[in-house]
């Protein structure tokens, strides 16, 4: 087994784990983590492709590396947007809960 195959298998495992996580888990944070795992698997795949140098026939093809870097930026922004949404949702729900509780206690007091 050469390095490329090994890394390929690693990438496949990561993709599999990510897919499993994103489908099965209920909590948004876990889904976001699973998405990053999934993305990681794909980036590993790009790494192998760069190693194989498919495009130009030389050892380290720079194009996939450039793609991976861009991809990481995109995945990072995606995670940031998702986490922001999760936090905002939490805040809104929390505020609603607090309001409900204070409404309850006011009623109790009255």
């Amino acid at each position: 087994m050469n390095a490329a195959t090994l890394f390929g298998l690693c990438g496949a495992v990561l993709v599999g784990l990510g897919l499993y996580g994103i489908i099965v888990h209920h909590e948004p944070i876990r889904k976001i983590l699973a998405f990053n795992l999934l993305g990681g698997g794909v980036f590993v795949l790009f790494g192998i492709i760069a190693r194989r140098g498919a495009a130009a026939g030389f050892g380290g093809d720079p194009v996939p590396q450039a793609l991976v870097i861009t991809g990481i930026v995109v995945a990072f922004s995606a995670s940031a947007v998702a986490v922001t949404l999760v936090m905002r949702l939490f805040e809104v729900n929390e505020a609603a809960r607090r309001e409900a509780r204070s409404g309850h206690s006011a009623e109790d007091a009255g």
Partner: protein
Amino acid sequence: MTGGSLLLVLSLAFPLVLLLGALSRDLRQHLPRILPYAPVPALATALFASGATFALPDWPLRLTLELDAPGAILLGVAALLWIVAGVAAQGYLRGRSDAGRFSVWWLTTLVGSMGVFIAADLPSFYLLFSMVSLAAYGLVVFDDTPSTRRAGRVYVALAVLGEAFLLLAFVLLSTATADNSLMIRDVVGNLAQSPWRDLTIGLIILGFGIKMGLVPFHVWMPLAYTAAPIPAVAVMSGAAVKAGVIGMIRFLPFDSASSGWGTALVVVGLFSAFYGVAIGITQKNPKTVLAYSSVSQMGVIATVFGMGLSSGDRGVMLGGAFYAAHHILVKGGLFLAIGAAASVGSRRLWPVLLPAAIIALGIGGLPLTGGALAKLAVKDTLGYGLVGTLGALSAAGSTLLMLHFLTCLQAVPIEPKMVRPSSRSALSMVLSPVAPWLAIALAAILVPWVLYLSVLGGSVADALKPYALWSSIWPMLIGGALWSALQRWGNRLPLVPRGDILVFFGAVKPASARCSAAFEQADDYLRRWPVAGLSLLILAVAFGIATFALR
């Protein structure tokens, strides 16, 4: 552009311009005053522009208009009815705040109703047919009550269904023709060679059959005709329904005999002819009785077309159009008679009742009336065998139904007049529904004679032959006998709800509700996150396998 082409365009453009005027709220209020003038260009077209054509380039506007003899007969007579009914509509709308809205629906229906008689290409015909079918919905539900809403729903559902059939038929017609021509003449001429010939004819019969109210698609007729205001129902039953008739004239391939579909159409038509009478005599509301009479009369016309189709006889186009033209005037007129009767009251009923009796019995074939001429015009088509006899018997049925209608007409309650702070005298209030009625009654007697002598080339002598007279009198005698039986034992007839077989659709309702609930459950399930995620993976695998499977 020749004068004829100009008239053709004007007959659509003039009401369309009026419609554009309705965009302004101020102008809309004045629209009812112009209603009777809107169909005038169409009438002029029918009189002076026969044989004219008009075509716009394919792009950006696709519109071809043409006037042939059957189209001209129907166009002219329908325009006449629209004019007279427009006068009646003015009376109906006087003092109503929603008159503008009524006028908008009225004019839209009018454009479609005139347009179908002159459209010469598929998309234009479909557009105008949709206009006349769908805009009439606004007229049906104009008086907003639960029962008119139900009528409107049934009407629209069937109209849309009919249009779906027609769209398919038109696409088949166009696809089967070389270079996908869109001209009606090309596609119908080519129908005999079409690989989908039978399917196309079937769809055409279904689509236009719904519009004509052939059983079992007649259910909308009694509902809608009872729901709509009198002037509206006059034009719907008289003019708008003839969109189905002109459709059959234009699209059925009378050049080549197709006995299977011809026979089917004859069977359906004859069944409708008798079915309409059978249910009609159980009804008490004169509007409903007339609606069932329309079912019956459209059945007769369908029978005529069926005979023509099975023998490959182009003559039925003109004969059928003539029969339909007579029906336009009589049916539109009789509906106006109901309005007139309601306004004069039972004590002064005779000026309404007497002409009503004459033209109503014309439907049964009363000698010397237009009805007798109409029957004469299609007599040879129906033949002298079984169909001919059944056709004559249907005239007996019509006589019976019309006598029943006249009975119901006498019982029409006087319309409670709203007290209006207006200087108009009581006379003009009574006159406004009565005068149009008398005008149309007169036209119903005279116009068929003019058409018979000029367009059909018939002679007075033919119409007065003893044989012709006798063949129209004996069914009337039977009808009269049946009527006296009805007078005597009529109360034993079962009470058939308006729209008869519609009650069976009540049984379908829960099933369709269950079905759509099942869709909702499926949607609920598919939209769960894990399910959707799994579908995603399954689809990816499915696409992969599908491409592999090609190897």
